């Protein structure tokens, strides 16, 4: 029963938080798209295709943010054996994988008019591709065991090992000369980007974050319910009622 103490509290909390995040997602996304399409200027070099940035950059941020969250949740689950942390890590992986995929696809769409090619094998693109494979490996390993706790442990260790990729992604544009441009928003001397472009970017990032939180609430809730169903089945199998 001690096992369910926290999940119960968690269920109550997320029941209220879930719809809040959903509303925030819709609101921020609507505003963000409006600003991105009508308020921000077209680039003098890149033309209208610069607007891909408003999806690409937040998606790439989220790809990293989700992985960091997953690593933290996995570590908490591994060290303190916290059941909700395991579920949160598991629930984060597909969302992170989807954002990584989105970042790769939008980057490719942006790269065609910009660089004249869909894909280049530079450090940033390659390391993000590795990130995508790490997400897939995590998901596959998590579901490869008959005992869900073993899947959670094994995949948590994989997530921790894969964390060495994070600094490589972050600094790949600084360490190697690549086609990919370096960061212009997160800088010590303030953002090197005009507010008319910064605002839609931040709005979209907010929308994506809220979307993640919303899906996280939903997925962890459904995992907890699935867990209860399994426990009931087990009781039936052993004939205790």
């Amino acid at each position, binding site marked *: 029963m001690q096992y369910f103490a926290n999940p119960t509290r968690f269920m109550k909390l997320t029941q209220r938080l879930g719809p809040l995040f959903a509303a925030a997602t819709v609101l921020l996304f609507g505003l963000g798209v409006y600003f991105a399409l009508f308020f921000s200027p077209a680039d003098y070099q890149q033309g209208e295709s610069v607007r891909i940035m408003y999806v690409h950059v937040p998606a790439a941020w989220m790809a990293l943010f989700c992985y960091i969250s997953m690593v933290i949740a996995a570590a908490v689950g*591994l060290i303190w054996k916290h059941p909700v942390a395991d579920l949160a890590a598991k629930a984060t992986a597909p969302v992170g994988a989807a954002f990584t995929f989105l970042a790769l696809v939008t980057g490719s769409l942006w790269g065609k008019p910009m660089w004249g090619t869909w894909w280049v094998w530079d450090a940033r693109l*390659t390391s993000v591709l*590795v990130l995508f*494979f*790490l997400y*897939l*490996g995590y998901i*596959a*390993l998590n579901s*490869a*065991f*008959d005992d869900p706790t*073993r899947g959670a*442990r*094994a995949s948590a*260790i*994989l997530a*921790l*090992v*894969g964390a*060495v990729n994070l600094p*490589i992604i972050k600094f790949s544009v600084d360490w190697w000369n690549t086609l990919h441009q370096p960061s212009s928003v997160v800088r010590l001397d303030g953002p090197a980007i005009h507010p008319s472009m910064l605002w839609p970017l931040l709005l979209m990032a907010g929308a994506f974050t809220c979307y993640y939180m919303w899906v996280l609430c939903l997925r962890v809730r459904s995992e907890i319910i699935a867990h209860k169903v399994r426990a009931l089945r087990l009781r039936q199998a052993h004939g205790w009622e």
Partner: protein
Amino acid sequence: MLRSAVILVRRDVRLAFRQGMDSLMAVAFFVLAVVLFPFGVGPEPNILARIAAGIIWVSALLASMLSLERLFQADYEDGSLELLVLQPIPLEVLVATKVFAHWLTSGLPLVVVAPLLALILNMAPEGFWALMAALAFGTPSLSLIGAVGAALVLGSRRGGVLLSLLILPLYIPVLIFGVAAVDAAAEGFAAKPHLMMMAGILLASLVLAPWASAAALRQALE
């Protein structure tokens, strides 16, 4: 501790020699995979010379992964792993010795055979030493990184395919610098910076991999 390590390595090497063809198979796969390429891309010597380093490295990667599946699996199945964990030796040391034995029996042969393959792929002679040096630094890293994956998939369904999905992405840095070192040497540039990078990767995996594998083994046996 040193005595235990020697005993552990000796046993694994003896096992590898007695039961099998495991290490021979890895070498045979390596040679065969490399030999396939001239048929795939055509026998044009210049093209082969240009891509020789890449072919050899990718084949070495796959060959080392092939033999990794058995690294802990056999001991896991017959109960030896349980007993090994219960010996008064730190598990990290145990993992390191098993990886070392694995490298001796399946990584080192690749390093030895590689120049022969470079020869038939028409690689520039300047690249030969760089190739051997790069493989000498790279294959232990592959064994170390692979050990983490091999420990993680113990007891899972579809272990082999899963192992490649987990491990191949992590092999990419070794591949990049390994090929870069050989290419640099073959074109008359210094291979040293790339080899230093590979030594760095080896050191990092020497520190991280035994620790992660030990954690994975512990949870596999719980």
